[in-house]
């Protein structure tokens, strides 16, 4: 429990803890950003912009594997939260690092994907499909990486039995990162254009 900060931080007229309110708010704004990007992709697709037949060239295996990795990491962060709730800081610390590990695997797979595609000549500027592919997955990967960094910082606090409420908050963020991927995966990997 944190005792620092102004009185304001400790009030909760709505009954919802302030940190949770803030993170949901942040997630809402991120949803609009990614939602906007995905909507632009769909608009181009349904207006028959050139290049969308290249969607068949993304590796569905890699995408599916990444989906599995992210979903599993969402599970581990939930377990970390449960551990924090019951005060088991050692277990919470472990589960947070499993989640970070999942993020790392995700990024490694993406790196592999990017390099194979680029070597085949499908770069950011190849056509509109690839521009979207790299922009959307790149932005997403940045959020994965950012999440990993924040999780690491929180894990060290948790190990010292400090700011345990933040495990739930980073968990919410991580679920959002997961959900964005759940939308990107079908439109970039599965749909046959």
């Amino acid at each position: 429990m944190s005792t620092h900060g102004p009185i304001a931080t400790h009030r909760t007229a709505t009954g919802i803890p302030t940190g949770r309110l803030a993170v949901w708010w942040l997630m809402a704004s991120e949803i609009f950003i990614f939602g906007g990007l995905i909507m632009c992709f769909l608009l181009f697709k349904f207006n028959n912009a050139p290049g969308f037949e290249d969607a068949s060239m993304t590796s569905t295996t890699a995408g599916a594997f990444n989906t599995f990795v992210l979903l599993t990491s969402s599970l581990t962060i939930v377990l970390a939260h449960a551990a924090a709730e019951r005060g088991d800081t050692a277990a919470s610390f472990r589960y947070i690092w499993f989640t970070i590990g999942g993020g790392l695997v995700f990024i490694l797979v993406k790196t592999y994907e990017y390099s194979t595609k680029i070597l085949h000549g499908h770069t950011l500027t190849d056509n509109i499909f690839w521009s979207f592919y790299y922009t959307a997955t790149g932005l997403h990967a940045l959020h994965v990486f950012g999440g990993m960094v924040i999780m690491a910082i929180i894990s060290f606090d948790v190990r010292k039995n400090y700011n345990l409420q933040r495990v739930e908050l980073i968990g919410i963020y991580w679920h959002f990162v997961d959900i964005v991927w759940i939308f990107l995966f079908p439109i970039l990997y599965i749909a046959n254009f």
Partner: protein
Amino acid sequence: MGQQSESIVHEAEVHEAHHEQSFLMKYIFPLDHKMIGFQYMFTGLFMAAIGGYFAYAFRMQLAFPGAEVPLYGFVDPANYNMLVTNHGTIMIFWVAMPVLIAAFGNWMIPLMIGCDDMVFPRLNRLSYQVFLVSALVLILSFFVEGGGFGGAWTSYPPLSAAAEYNLTNWGASLWLLAVALEIVAFLLGGINFITTTMNARAPGMGMMDIPIVIWMINIAVILFMSSVGPLVAGAVMLFFDQRLGTSFFMPSGGGDPLLWQHLFWFFGHPEVYVVLLPTMGIVADIITVFSRKKLFGYRTILYTAFGTGGLSFIVWAHHQFIAGIDPRMANVFVITTILISIPIAEMVFSYIATLYGGSIEFSTPMLWALSFLVSFLIGGVTGIYLGSSAMDIYFHDSYFVVAHFHYTFFPITIIGMFAAITFWFPKMFGRMLDETLNKIHFWGTIIPFNGLFLPLFLVGMAGQHRRIADYTQYPDLASPDLQGIRIFATVSLVIMLLFQFVFIYNFFNSIFKGKKAPMNPWRATTLEWTIPSPPPHGNFAEMPTVYRGPYEYSVPGHDEDYWPQHIPPKSNV
């Protein structure tokens, strides 16, 4: 966790002793919402000076084409485009938003809801720092090779997407980066505002006891957050087009320039309500105090604010009637655009109804608030012309648009800013502004303001198009009458800018030598007037409890004509 009684007990434990702060921690890296509010305010005022200076330069060019502008230099067409682009961009993103929302929001939200700071002071500080960087990046863009971006604040591609078209390679990207950073700063700041208002209210303050300005600022924050997301996505896409050679908006690569327009205006239209609502809130708080009357229809005003906010999401394509969208779509947007005038009209009617039966004192804040109503009314009704698609065929990208949006934005930003400053100055600085200088500044601003923008409707009716550096080259626009109007407008602007020095003098002189301000010089009911001027660190020596709404003026059966929110009901004050 989170019951009210628990939090009161908790408050006694949490309030720790505060040590003396160094100059650096107090003024440069503050955590206190009041100092952060000042940082936003002074940065915003500084940027307003730059924006005003740009307006001076380009209006002088319009009045006396080709002549050297005193205190500036020559304005060639490239420079002209840079001036108008950055004037608009600065005024909206670096003046209106930081002063109205960030500065006064930061100052007033904790004070008016009765708590000691924002819930996330470090996030608050970070949001200002990001904002400051955005301002510096924008200023940097003026000095790079090629000069500042000149593609208008709307930044339509393909012009904005390719350096070979806009000829301001780095200027365009730095401009875009500055806007993106400003958006991030306000997204971060918005988190604080919403969570503080929702959660940190004093015990007893229900949703309907919140002063309307706080509601308005929060609705504005919600509107901003919901509308800016797609634009952020679009800005990333535009940045990639500029720097990495993608073709999101370039037809030659399969892209669509119109997509940017939709993304921009989907944000751009709610954005005008993002800046309007806080000023409407400020005006409401002022007219209640100076007419000693309860706000007429608090709930109605709230619902119209929500209605306007909601409707603002479905009007955007009225900026694109003749942009090449399917003409059938235009009809939908005519209907929604004309309809949005309805909740706003109801809001304005409610404000006027507040004055009925009042006891009106024409203090300077009240003069500003009233002039807002009159000027914004002009802006609002002229919007009807532009929302009518067939009329817009003639007026699109003409000076009628310029006059319309200045009759909305100027009242919102400048009049709203002066209303708020003259009203809350005593609280913020513990001193009173000189009332004579206040009034001189008021009239010296309002009269030239109308002298500047009213004639622009006329040149718009004459078909004068926008963003042109020299109208004397167009035979139909080069008549002595029209040029005379341009000169008149420019002279009005210069007079108006000169009168701002009266304000600058009054402002700084009063900070140091003004009459000491009492705790509640306006005899107002809201919580910020129950603490010393200026408020101490932590604001309230004893956290208040709230017993009634924020506008209990002239309550029958009371000796005093105001009944502050924090006075327990049994006492007869």
